[in-house]
């Protein structure tokens, strides 16, 4: 007698085999030309944009996708984009496919985690293609010369948003929902708090770390618990601020956005927001490339960073709850930041356990290495990095 399980497994195996084969075959039968052809008129510059999440996340990825969209209509340029590409070797395949199939000669890899090892591996393999990575990680002499890196000092915008928040708050308690206690995030928390405390030095910011770049459930819990505690302005540093902003609106408190404009999610309580303005950055890169400059020939700098002054940032338009006085104070701070008169990290600054972290009279400009390694929370922030 035959073993009945053998039959089942063989059937399964055959079926699987056929399924895979038939999948390709049936597609081939239904084939018609769908191959993308370059739009005529010489050979356009093709730039590929890769995002780690959806293009409409009201956050990090949307900011980049809006930057990409600002390139539409530029003569001699074709852009291709792909969203929700994970930080695995899938992103290497995406880059390869953009280069091989779409003919991309410039790749904009917008997620921080794409850099090592993915961008570096592809850059070695395609030395004639330029790779631009968002995150400011390029190191001279360490990384391939066809790799460039760009990033913005968005804590400047958070500083201004802190001023607006301080004016709106009546409980003098602000809330900051953050993903991870890493330098980039801590810098935003501290700048927001320092900005707010220029208005009223008694203001405190409660910070909660969710531990993940996208964890809507914990973000909502954090937002609700902050509202319960009497905190009346919320801001955040997570990939998509959507949940935080919506929760704040539902609880009837104010919110301040991040990454992109979330005003439509909170028409009543949205104050302003610290936004990226990648359109300037991308237009600039494209113009340089179209002028024949490359990373390899030294025409394009390998590391590009900037704040308000360089047009890397913008503020969301002020919401209805922002008073004229607050607007004036915020605009003034913004102007001073852009002109370089105002330095956010100017001593003496103490951390929230009373230790002096920046000595009196010392100024740390935006390019200071110390700020890149920030591992403390400023006085007035409630929470710990541990």
């Amino acid at each position, binding site marked *: 007698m035959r073993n009945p*399980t*053998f039959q*089942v*497994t063989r*059937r*399964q*195996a*055959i*079926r*699987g*085999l*056929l*399924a*895979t084969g*038939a*999948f*390709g075959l*049936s*597609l*081939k039968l*239904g*084939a*018609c*030309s*769908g*191959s*993308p052809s370059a739009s005529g008129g010489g050979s356009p510059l093709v730039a590929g944009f890769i995002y780690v999440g*959806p*293009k409409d996340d009201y956050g990090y990825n949307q900011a980049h996708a809006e930057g990409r969209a600002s390139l539409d209509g530029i003569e001699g340029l074709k852009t*291709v*984009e*792909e*969203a*929700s*590409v*994970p*930080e*695995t*070797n*899938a992103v290497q*395949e*995406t880059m*390869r*496919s*953009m280069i*091989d*199939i*779409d003919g991309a000669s410039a790749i904009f890899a917008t997620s*921080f*985690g794409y850099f090592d*090892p993915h961008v570096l591996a592809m850059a070695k393999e395609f030395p004639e293609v330029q790779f631009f990575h968002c*995150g400011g990680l390029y190191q001279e002499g360490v990384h391939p010369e066809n790799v460039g890196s760009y990033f913005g000092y968005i804590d400047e915008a958070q500083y201004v948003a802190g001023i607006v928040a301080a004016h709106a708050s009546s409980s003098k308690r602000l809330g900051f929902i953050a993903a*991870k*206690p*890493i*330098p*980039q995030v801590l810098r935003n928390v501290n700048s927001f708090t320092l900005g707010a405390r220029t208005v009223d030095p008694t203001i405190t910011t409660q910070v909660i770390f969710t*531990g993940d770049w996208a964890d809507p459930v914990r973000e909502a819990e954090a937002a609700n618990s902050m509202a319960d505690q009497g905190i009346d302005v919320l801001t955040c540093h997570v990939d998509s601020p959507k949940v935080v902003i919506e929760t704040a609106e539902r609880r009837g408190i104010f919110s301040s956005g991040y990454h992109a404009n979330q005003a439509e999610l909170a028409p009543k309580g949205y104050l302003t927001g610290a936004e990226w303005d990648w359109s300037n950055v991308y237009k600039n890169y494209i113009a340089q490339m179209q002028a024949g400059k490359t990373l390899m020939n030294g025409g394009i700098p390998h590391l590009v960073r900037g704040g308000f002054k360089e047009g890397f940032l913008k503020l969301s338009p002020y919401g209805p709850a922002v008073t004229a006085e607050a607007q004036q104070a915020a605009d003034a701070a913004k102007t001073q930041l852009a002109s370089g008169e105002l330095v956010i990290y100017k001593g003496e600054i103490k951390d929230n356990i009373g230790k002096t972290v920046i000595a009196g009279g010392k100024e740390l400009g935006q390019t200071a290495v110390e700020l*890149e*390694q920030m591992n403390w929370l400023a006085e007035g922030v409630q929470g710990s990095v541990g």
Partner: protein
Amino acid sequence: MTDRWRSSLEKICIPIGALVAALALFGLFCALAGANPFGVYYSIYRAAFGSWSSFQNTLIQASPLMLSALCTALPARLGLVIIGNEGALVMGGLAAVAGGLTLSGAGAPVLGVQLGMALAGMAAGGIWIAIVGALRHYRAVNETISSLLMNYIAIAFLNHMVNGPMKDPSSLNKPSSYPIPEIDMLGTLPGSRVHYGLVLGLIACGLAYFLIQRTTFGFAARTAGGNVRAARVAGLPVGKLTLAICFLGGACAGLAGMVEVAAVHGRANESLNANYGYGGVLVAFIARHNPLAASLVALLLGGILASGGILQRSHGLPDATVMVFQGIVFLSVLYSDSLYGKLPIFKPRPARPRPPVATATAV
């Protein structure tokens, strides 16, 4: 003769029919989203299987799924529904990095380091799922729930380790472990960009099939899976079987984690947690927990994932389209399972009344 032919035809027609139905439904979806369905079909084919280069993409996407699927498929033969693949994968990756750094620090040869990483990854993943098996066997804790929750523990543990004890201080904004030396990394198969994870996956699927179908151990496991009480009465060591098969399943997922670390990332960080575990659960269920079928289903899923990019870039479809496609294909394949023996055209015909003479000679 005709009946056998019919049943073979059934096995061919039903899965093809399921795929055609899925493609038709997906075509409808594409048309609604404003894309030409036939152009989309062609693009999917081209991106997944159309050339050696694009087929390599499919293989790359498929290899972690094969190993990860075994973490669900093996225990399922014992009647356990385990979905802790992600956790076992993460623990395996973490242990592999720890093992690799220790060994390379001690000056072990390349092969030794790689073997050490593989063993460490398998041990960690194996123990992780064996804990689930032990909870099930000794404390009657539902293994599905406990394995799911163990995923969160594993991910939190990973974050803790790369943020604390194992952190490379130079990894400021993306906390990671120290990197494994370049020389100790797993290479790619000659003439391709596919890493050795594919070979490991195929070998593991083959071995798992052999273990389950061709050994007394596998027979005992299947028996216990069929009826635990009967197995106990027959004197089978159900507890040991549970722990062993959970360990093996977890070891496969742990090996997947090791491959991710040793062939792709080179270090442990949050990128390890890339949903290969949940993909593996899907593969195992579609393959009906058959390890050989799992390798083929992984290939199909890999092809679908590989075609995700082209749908966005050439047809302007949203990034979730590939998930819709995957969902439609798998639902329709799963549904088609219920059609076996139901379609009249494939039913064996009742034996025709034979002439009396024939009856006489037969007896």
